[in-house]
């Protein structure tokens, strides 16, 4: 009896394990397939940009042959762009505006988030919600009143006008991200600091900023991306080429009437995309890391 029963039990177990393995294999396959499809969809435009940038104008205009293949690769488009002083000016303007906007955003958002998440005062909840609601108003609605304000201040056609208005996009969202991050820091940490003798500013500077660094970096990445890629505001406020950032400079200077310098446009767009890629590559680990591990139990 036992001799017949044993293999049966064993077979049952094996069968179950086998079906689990099959389920896992199926899950893995479907994950891979969907990831590959997503990667193709996401990477096709930049890839097309790259191959177009590597083509001569004649090759781009040639309708015969496969457009996804480069026959005579050339760097002449990149050389033309990088050799163009005006383009270098756009690049510099973008860097300057972005750095200033990131600094201004952090200088406003960090203390604001700290105050809203930690210093319980009358109306702080409403203020926190209000800050987020302002983020929901799109820039396409805001640029008309902002045009009046920027014009009134005499900052039209100046990158300082952009430094003034970009924070209206970055500050609310960054403050919101950091309110959440600061709120996740255990209350006992500030109580310990209070008892240790820290004032509010010391607590912010010596405890909250280092502990919330991943959150602050996430907010920095956001502010950087928004500011680097902004299009509506500079289109509305800047018409002088020497004050233009990259996003509108490339478009305004390389499209003349109905003539598109496709090779240079693509090379310019690729070069413009480079800084965000570098920033993401370096800061992504911080972004994901949980620095609070070990602060409290667990």
């Amino acid at each position, binding site marked *: 009896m036992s001799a017949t029963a044993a293999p049966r039990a064993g077979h049952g177990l094996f069968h179950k394990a086998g079906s689990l393995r099959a389920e896992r294999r199926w899950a893995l396959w479907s994950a891979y397939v969907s990831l590959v499809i997503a990667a193709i969809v996401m990477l096709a435009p930049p890839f097309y940009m790259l191959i177009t940038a590597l083509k001569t104008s004649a090759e781009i205009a040639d309708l015969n042959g496969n457009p996804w293949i480069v026959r005579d690769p050339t760097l002449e488009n990149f050389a033309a762009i990088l050799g163009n002083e005006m383009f270098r000016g756009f690049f510099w303007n973008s860097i300057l505006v972005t750095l200033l906007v990131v600094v201004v955003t952090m200088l406003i958002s960090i203390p604001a988030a700290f105050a809203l998440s930690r210093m319980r005062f009358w109306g702080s909840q409403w203020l926190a919600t209000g800050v987020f609601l302002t983020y929901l108003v799109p820039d396409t609605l805001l640029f008309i009143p902002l045009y009046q304000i920027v014009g009134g201040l005499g900052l039209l056609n100046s990158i300082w006008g952009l430094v003034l208005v970009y924070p209206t996009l970055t500050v609310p969202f960054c403050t919101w991200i950091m309110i959440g991050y600061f709120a996740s820091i*255990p209350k*006992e*940490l500030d*109580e*310990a*600091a*209070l*008892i*240790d*003798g*820290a*004032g509010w500013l*010391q607590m912010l500077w*010596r*405890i909250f900023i*280092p*502990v919330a*660094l991943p959150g602050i970096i996430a907010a920095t990445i956001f502010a950087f991306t928004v500011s680097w890629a902004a299009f509506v505001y500079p289109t509305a406020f800047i018409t002088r080429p020497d004050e233009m950032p990259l996003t509108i400079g490339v478009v305004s200077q390389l499209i003349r009437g109905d003539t598109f310098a496709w090779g240079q446009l693509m090379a310019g767009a690729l070069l413009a995309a480079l800084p965000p890629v570098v920033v993401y590559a370096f800061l992504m680990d911080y972004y994901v890391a949980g*620095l*609070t*591990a*070990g*602060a*409290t*139990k667990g």
Partner: protein
Amino acid sequence: MAQVTLRRLVKEYEGGVQAVKGIDLEIADHEFVVLVGPSGCGKSTTLRMIAGLEDITGGEISIGGTVVNDIPPRDRDIAMVFQNYALYPHMTVFDNMAFGLTLRKFRKDEIQRRVMEAARILDITQLLDRKPKALSGGQRQRVAMGRAIVRDPKVFLFDEPLSNLDAKLRVQMRTEIKKVHQTVRTTTVYVTHDQVEAMTLADRVVVMNGGIIEQVGPPQELYHRPATRFVAGFIGSPAMNFIPARIEPASGALNLRLPGDILLPIPAERSDRYRAQGGREVLFGIRPEHLTETRQGRATYADLEVVPEVIEPMGMETLVHFHMDGTRDLCARLDPTIPAAPGQPLRLTADLANMHLLDPQSGRVL
């Protein structure tokens, strides 16, 4: 070093909920006082008011003779150890301990000396370069204590510091805390819900319940002479048994009638105390260790028969659970060699020298 005084201390939250209802307490210099009670009894709120982390609704707190009601935490010269340690995660153990001293602008060599001394007392010298995430729970708790010790404050405040540790480590750290207090002798207020911690650590235990102080006293006094039913039931494990009973006069003596027509003679030396209570319904309270296997030899021993429901052999003793009419679970502590089985009638001896009679309405011990 300093004494701490609470006078008519009240904490009322928004909506009128009173967490602390006007308590008075004097804590002497060098004393180790433990506030103990169930969750929501107001013990942590009281500690946080002493620390300055909660506003005071009414009354007065003084530390070292100075009223501190309006003094911020950093100027009260106190140090606090939190339940979840609250170590600064981005700093090394050394920096965690030195942080308070750095903020107070101590000289570098003095900071170094104090941190090394505290690390030596707590045996964490080899951990000074590590970050909190590289430490075990017990080590983190030591660092939290180190952070308090280096400051050499007037008062140490402990808020359930051992609750996050496993049972074995808790016992070990309990001893450590007692050792540290014997070394540094700083006035200490310690909050816990664990009555064993309270009993083992305290010079005096403050039992709190529902925002008031039920009783204050040395651990032995609370154990042997509880003032109220709450204290009698809260201190001691397993808890004291409470059985409804009636005091009956019987030719010059007094008897205690228990459910099931069990009649226990009240010892002569206690009779005078209860003489005026003849005929009265009371609660008979007796601890499990005074309800044992049958014994003879003392006039205060009285036998009763029970039917065990659950037997719990603990090794050095056996706990027998049973019940009587109108009671919840009752417990007796037997020598482990005594045979006892569920459902088998068992004779027990109650040592009435250690009984307590309580007023069932007020809960006061008579």
